[in-house]
């Protein structure tokens, strides 16, 4: 089958619509002005209780747009992935945060203080989440998303959602694979207890979607997105130890 169905996907992502005058306005909270303080505190906590060994941070591009894609083990993953990177990256990195955490008074305040988070509702409808991410990338910024869609309850890598492939291929933005280990043991799902321990973060070389874009001439769009997503999963697995 050689159906190029990407036009429909582009319509769903509203890629042919003009960007609003200020496409990022909804994600800027005054609380974010505390991000330097919050990351200073994260740094202190990490130094004494959760030392981070970071490998390949130089693979993360200095300039946006790109998608930063780590596996997902714990609610503290974002801090562990971003802390070893240059501070200015936080200024243009927009993580997708589920409404469960975003709407919670405690976690929501920490999220808004430390990130330019985008509130998403993946259970109800993921298209608005994909469109929000597409809009951020079109505005020249970067997106942080967990391709597993949820935290792994066992620490093992889960199957990946194809949405990351849709974004990368349709917007032609590179994806940086990131492998994280240790945060699961520090804060397990459903537990409020913090167990001190080491964290390992490995950043892989960005995956260019160029070859996959060409594949759309021969394959249906979904299969191209899926192939890209599988490559990303493979690369994250290769970074594991």
């Amino acid at each position, binding site marked *: *089958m050689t*159906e190029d*169905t*990407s*036009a*429909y*996907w582009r319509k*769903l992502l509203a890629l042919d619509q003009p960007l609003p005058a200020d496409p990022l306005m909804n994600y800027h909270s005054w609380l974010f002005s505390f991000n330097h303080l919050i990351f200073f505190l994260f740094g202190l906590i990490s130094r004494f209780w959760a030392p981070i060994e970071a490998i390949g941070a130089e693979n993360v591009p200095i300039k946006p747009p790109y998608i930063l894609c780590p596996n997902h083990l714990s609610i503290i993953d974002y801090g562990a992935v971003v802390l070893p990177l240059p501070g200015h990256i936080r200024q243009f990195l927009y993580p997708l945060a589920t409404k469960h955490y975003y709407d919670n008074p405690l976690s929501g305040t920490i999220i808004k203080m430390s990130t330019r988070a985008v509130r998403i509702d993946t259970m109800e*409808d*993921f*298209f608005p989440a994909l469109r929000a991410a597409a809009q951020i990338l079109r505005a020249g910024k970067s997106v942080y998303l967990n391709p597993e869609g949820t935290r792994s309850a066992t620490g093992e890598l889960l199957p990946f*959602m*194809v*949405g990351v492939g*849709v974004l990368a291929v349709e917007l032609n933005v590179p994806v940086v694979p990131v492998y994280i280990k240790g945060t699961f043991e520090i804060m397990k799902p459903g537990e409020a207890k913090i167990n001190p321990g080491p964290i390992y973060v490995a950043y892989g070389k960005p995956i260019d979607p160029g070859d996959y874009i060409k594949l759309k001439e021969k394959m*249906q*769009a*979904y299969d191209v*997105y899926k192939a890209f997503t599988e490559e990303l999963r493979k690369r994250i697995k290769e970074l594991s130890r």
Partner: protein
Amino acid sequence: MSASLPEDLEEEVRELASKVLKLPKAKVTLEADLFTDLGVDSLLGVEIFAALDKKYGIDVPEGRLRDVHTIKDIARLVRELKK
């Protein structure tokens, strides 16, 4: 160029879905649940509508995608949208 609807639309939708899903047509029955019986994820479901959009020129409102669970539902929706 969008085609007009055939009388045996259900059969055409079955044919198209079996190609998109890469499943034997015998498995893609009118009543089979796309998600539980055929293992379709939400985005692969979109691909069926993308193919329908291309073939029949129907613009499926995003909110209606969630109403569809079987081939029969798809055919019903296509007829409704083509009216």
